């Protein structure tokens, strides 16, 4: 009997200990930066609250960690625990964890938001938790994509837009000294280059019709926006890609493949570098990831221009806070610091991220730092800012509804139209069907 009681007591102790291990991760830890000679009562008042921060590797992970360390060293009230997730499924992990109530306090989200998270009240309204009207007013007009029913849910870090990439040396070789000014000119020039080279050089490629399937979503959005397309009828909340604009836009894209101007397959980034592709369109990504900027072999052989047409794609990266956080003030303190105008040059230099502020409303010092960045690569920055300026904020905002279904359906089905596997209208109908089913 004694042995049984002893075993029971030990088991209880073990369970209690385990329960202790599994208790809330929100621990109050002493402020290491506080003066060791200060009085004990003063130390207690300076205890830091720990918040969890889940980020995607928008820039090098080491750099993100350095920024978080810098914040932790200077903040007297907040300690941030960083967790960097991969691009492949990081967004899904964040959404699932936040929805389950066991997620991070602050996390990465598209600046255009995810309507399912907004509708489920998973996001903290920032204007009610420390973001002043003046602070919100400093942002550029793209901030509208992060606002739903007058609530600001995301603090933008940077935006991205599409660029036209040109191999000027190849274009000259085939008799084109000037850059195209319209989509029709692109098509004419591309057709001539593909034909004259006997297929050795592809005139033009829509990014996403190569090995990077996801990118077709952005390429499509550019052309769709240029034709005046809208993702949704906001009154009925139904998908409207199967519209006159949608059909025209997709027919236009398809014509590049049906007329043999472009072909599927090989990476556009690689082909551009190798001189097997004269023109393509993509985000600012390859400038850094493919090291186009500063590449000695490519020097003088290429340039970029703003996206053609009247409108186009814009996307963005932002931070949100969980509505379930116990420390909203600490979250907002960190978010303001991490996305501040002072940090804008970091995102600009690391990934050519388009800074989210209206520079005219910043201090002279902040403006000077951003202007200095613009002087480093003026052609690229001019093109990026021009693309962002004419990008469709409406489409950016609409994209948050049925986002995942649209992303997946477009990725699969746009290619089906381009390669002739499915009729254009059938493709658009099917996209609408899948998006509507998900909403």
């Amino acid at each position, binding site marked *: 009997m004694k042995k049984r009681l002893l075993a029971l007591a030990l088991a209880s102790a073990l369970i209690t200990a385990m329960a202790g291990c599994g208790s809330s991760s929100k621990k109050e830890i002493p402020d290491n930066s506080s003066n060791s000679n200060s009085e004990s009562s003063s130390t207690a008042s300076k205890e830091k609250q720990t918040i969890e921060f889940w980020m995607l590797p928008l820039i090098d992970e080491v750099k993100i960690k350095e920024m978080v360390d810098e914040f932790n060293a200077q903040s007297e009230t907040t300690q941030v625990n960083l967790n960097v997730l991969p691009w492949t499924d990081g967004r899904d992990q964040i959404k699932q964890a936040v929805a389950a109530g066991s997620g991070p306090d602050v996390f990465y989200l598209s600046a255009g938001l995810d309507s399912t998270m907004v509708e489920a009240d998973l996001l903290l309204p920032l204007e009610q938790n420390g973001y002043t009207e003046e602070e919100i007013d400093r942002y550029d007009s793209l901030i509208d994509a992060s606002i739903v029913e007058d609530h600001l849910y995301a603090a933008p870090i940077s935006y991205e837009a599409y660029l036209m990439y040109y191999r000027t040396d190849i274009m000259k070789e085939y008799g084109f000294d000037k850059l195209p000014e319209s989509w029709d000119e692109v098509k004419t020039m591309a057709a001539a280059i593909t034909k004259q080279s006997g297929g050795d050089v592809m005139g033009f490629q829509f990014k996403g019709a190569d090995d990077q399937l996801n990118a077709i979503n952005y390429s499509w959005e550019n052309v769709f926006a240029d034709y005046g397309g809208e993702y949704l009828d906001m009154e009925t909340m139904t998908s409207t890609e199967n519209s006159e604009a949608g059909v025209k836009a997709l027919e236009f894209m398809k014509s590049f493949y049906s007329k043999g101007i472009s072909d*599927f*397959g*090989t990476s556009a980034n690689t082909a551009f570098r190798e001189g097997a592709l004269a023109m393509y369109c993509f985000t600012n990504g390859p400038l850094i990831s493919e090291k186009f900027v500063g590449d000695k072999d490519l020097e003088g052989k290429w340039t970029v221009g703003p996206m053609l047409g009247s409108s186009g794609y814009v996307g963005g990266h932002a931070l949100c806070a969980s509505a379930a956080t116990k420390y909203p003030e600490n979250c907002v303190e960190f978010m303001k610091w991490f996305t501040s105008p002072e940090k804008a040059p970091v995102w600009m230099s690391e990934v050519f991220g388009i800074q989210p502020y209206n520079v005219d409303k910043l201090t002279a010092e902040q403006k000077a730092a951003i202007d200095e960045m613009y002087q480093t690569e003026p052609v690229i920055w001019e093109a990026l800012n021009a693309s962002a300026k004419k990008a469709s904020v409406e489409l950016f905002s609409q994209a948050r509804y049925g*986002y995942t279904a649209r992303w*997946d359906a477009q990725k699969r089905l746009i290619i089906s139209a381009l390669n002739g596997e499915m009729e254009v209208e059938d493709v658009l109908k099917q996209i609408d069907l899948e998006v509507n*089913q*998900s909403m």
Partner: protein
Amino acid sequence: MSMEQKNPRTVALKPKTRNTLQAYMFFLPAAAFLILFMIWPMINSAFYSVFKWNLAGNKSFVGLDNYKFMLFQDSSFRRALLNTIIYTIFNMGLTLVLSMVCALLFQKQSRMSVVGRCLVFIPVVVPITVMGMVWKMMYDPQYGFINQVLSMLNITGPSWLYDSNIALLAVTIFNVWKEYGLYTLILIGGLQKIPQDLYEVADVEGANSWQKFWKITLPMLKPIMYFVTTILLINSFKAFDHIWVMTGGGPGNATTTVVTYLYAKVRDNVGLASAASFFLFLIVALFTFIKSVIGKGGEVDE
């Protein structure tokens, strides 16, 4: 002094009852594992399949709407189902033929056979996602190894993973190459268990190699073949990893299988993904049942 007198509370069990209890105790951990990680998720999946749920908000009951949408409205699902069946047929057929040929070649105990067995087994031990990425590069229309070799022979290689007409074949070829080594080893095990005197009698009767294969080898391999085809059937229906890595289900819907379909849906429509998952379970169960009836459970004919 008897045991009962020493400890009056001890109840003596009958040997049969004790054996039964022991058997249950041994079975219990496996059963618990099976219930927790296999049966419970399946029940859960069936439960979620009648709800509309995007992970973030509340679940709303929709009855059989997810099944109706999937089967009668969504052409992508119908294409995924067709692709899965085509993939299963080709994957099973090619893998069986190739592994049988290799098993017959490498069944004898010789140095060459040992080397051959090692070579065919190498692809099995390399992670499928890693090999999928390598093969994706090999399939590259312009810079890929396969088309470079073909161009040396003055043959213009196809676009492989980017051509809707052959992308499914390309991912099937990869999977056959990746997996046939495993089935080769299983079949070698079966071949080595066939009594040699049967072949000696056949030799005396004057049977040729072909007759010996059809009349002795294949019938005697029936239990192993039953096992191999069942595993192949299930694995073919579950095809996902390499397809996701190599094509993401594209181009278009050319390589979308039921599992890639449900994986794509699960992020925003758990109900629909669960319906697809439960439907897949029913199909595999049905095919396995039909196969066991036709194959008489793999029993060797008298």
